[in-house]
């Protein structure tokens, strides 16, 4: 390089060059690297599959309401899980939270004699406390959230069974529909306000749509959303530029708990009783929905809308298999297959996306031995005038 370097002039307007480089990223690729694209495409395929296999029931309003309701229930928790996963964490206690919130509400309303609304508020406070504790333990210990929330999961599962069996001699709490304030709560969480073609669509579908829209807005259009991506992508980097990284993570755990509570309230009012192991096992469905929606297990990337489409895939498959008259067990097989496909696709797309646009570096160099190749060039350049290094550089500068 020259003895002295003068400042580069502001680059002349070169729209043609810029356009040419932009054009290299085709529309197809831009679509593919959107995190929600896979889930949207998957949902379409599944819908078409059952429209073909169960055409008598699938295309009716009744059939639609059934799978939408199933998807919505998953979605109440899964959308929050998607945000948490983008923030780089897991929550395996999200399933048991559904039963926990229902149990506390039921016990407070039926056995303590509180108004149903007060019982719900107390239950929400407890759930938020558990969420906070999850987040606090993860932050303080530095352990993976996988192991911490696995612990919380078993603690809650055991505690719930122990408590209800001691109080009610059963594993569920009944009689909530007779408590004061239940009917108004029932309207809010379990009514069927929409009627299309004589079929009732339950209100949880609206909750699901509203929650998804809110989550997408927060994620893409607020400061907190930027922080969620950042703490998942690189917590240290986020902290260094002043992002309240720990508070963001703890907040996400509390959000998951609050959404688990909402899920629990919908189930409680729909069924009129609280089964304390409600939701146990579903934590994996929530994670599957989030992964289908493009969330990476390593954090920093994903979509709330994608997770909602992921829930739609789960809901449609679960109901579609019944409506098509297939063996029920195929549902699990299907879940496993689509999870693997989605996880592979996410990884492939991420590698592809993060490798794109590196100017002039052949893929093999970019992938392997990158650092070594670069260092070698630097050393040579230091010794000489860099002419040889120039040869392997691409366009740019």
């Amino acid at each position, binding site marked *: 390089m020259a003895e002295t370097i003068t400042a580069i002039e502001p680059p002349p307007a070169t729209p043609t060059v810029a356009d040419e480089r932009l054009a290299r990223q085709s529309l197809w690729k831009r679509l593919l690297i959107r995190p929600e694209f896979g889930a949207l495409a998957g949902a379409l395929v599944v819908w078409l599959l059952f429209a073909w296999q169960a055409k008598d029931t699938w295309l009716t309003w009744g059939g639609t309401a059934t799978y939408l309701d199933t998807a919505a229930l998953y979605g109440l928790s899964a959308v929050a899980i998607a945000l948490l996963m983008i923030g780089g964490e897991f929550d395996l206690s999200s399933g048991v939270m559904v039963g926990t919130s229902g149990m506390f509400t039921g016990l407070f309303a039926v056995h303590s004699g509180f108004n149903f609304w007060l019982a719900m508020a107390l239950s929400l406070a407890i759930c938020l406390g558990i969420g906070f504790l999850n987040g606090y333990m993860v932050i303080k210990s530095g352990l993976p959230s996988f192991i911490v929330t696995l612990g919380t999961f078993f603690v809650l599962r055991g505690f719930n069974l122990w408590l209800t069996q001691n109080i009610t001699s059963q594993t569920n709490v009944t009689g909530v529909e007779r408590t004061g304030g239940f009917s108004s709560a029932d309207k809010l969480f379990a009514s069927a306000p929409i009627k299309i073609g004589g079929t009732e669509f339950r209100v949880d579908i609206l909750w699901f749509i509203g929650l998804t829209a809110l989550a997408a807005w927060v994620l893409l259009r607020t400061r907190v959303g930027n922080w969620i991506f950042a703490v998942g992508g690189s917590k240290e980097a986020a902290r260094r530029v002043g992002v309240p990284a720990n508070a963001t993570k703890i907040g996400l755990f509390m959000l998951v708990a609050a959404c688990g509570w909402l899920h629990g309230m919908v189930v409680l009012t729909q069924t009129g009783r609280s089964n304390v192991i409600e939701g146990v096992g579903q934590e994996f469905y929530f994670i599957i929905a989030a992964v289908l929606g493009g969330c990476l297990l390593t954090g*920093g990337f994903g979509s709330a809308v994608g997770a909602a489409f992921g829930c739609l895939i789960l809901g449609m498959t679960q109901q579609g298999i019944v409506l098509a008259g297939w063996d029920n067990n195929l549902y699990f097989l299907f879940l496993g297959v689509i999870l693997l496909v989605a996880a592979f696709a996410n990884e492939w797309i991420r590698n592809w996306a993060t490798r794109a*646009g590196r100017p002039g570096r052949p893929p093999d160099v970019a992938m392997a031995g990158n650092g070594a190749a670069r260092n070698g060039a630097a050393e040579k350049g230091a010794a000489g005038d860099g002419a040889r290094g120039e040869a392997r550089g691409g366009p740019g500068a």
Partner: protein
Amino acid sequence: MPDLIELDNVSKYFGNVIALTGVTTTVKAGEVTCVLGDNGAGKSTFIKILSGVHPHDTGRFLVEGDEVHYTSPREARAAGIATVYQDLAMAPLMSIWRNFFLGSEPTKGWGPWRHFDVAGAKKIAVEELRKMGIDVRDPEQPVGTLSGGELQSVAIARAVYFGAKALILDEPTSALGVRQSGMVLKYIVAARDRNLGVVFITHNPHHAYPVGDRFVILKRGRSLGNYAKSEISREELTKLMAGGAELEELAHELESVDPEAAEEILP
């Protein structure tokens, strides 16, 4: 006008270990001060004193004429001293504009409608990068797809936009190829021409000499001198930094694998 940063015989001890001793130099607005040294020479300690991570123990540290004794990075940042670390503090899967404003997102609206001003952020990010001479193809591009030189330049542009007066660059060229290093050197010059004081930390005298106005050489925690460009040649700088004997040894080692390169080490 007093100098942006002035160090007068500054030392730092960790217990009985001398991490850095007797460092004297100045950083002026519109100039580049290069700090050279091999691994373990005390460069990191030097950065940490300037950026407020570790307070210095003896000597005087003046910022714009006032003696300071920083105890936290926040104080240094508030005084306009921005540090661009080697690992850059960016989230690789996030877009350029999201990273540019990370932690200081501009907002619009009021109360619950307060939201991230996305359009404004994209526009400013593109403009600021253009001022540094970086032509961004697409602000939505994840920063993980940028080349090493581009990444450094985004980090520099970000520091400049958020009000840095002095810019400390921690080995910005160490992991880069020749062309990429050249790009970073250009951005250093661009920052200098925008009247920033630049502290360029490096182990490579060939990168430092073309852009530097002043050179501080560190070795094993000691300062080997503080030279203006007129007082030292590139060859002297190289020799001083590595030690003549060590360079000869390197040239000898290289002889067998790459005679041409060996020749160029010792002209």
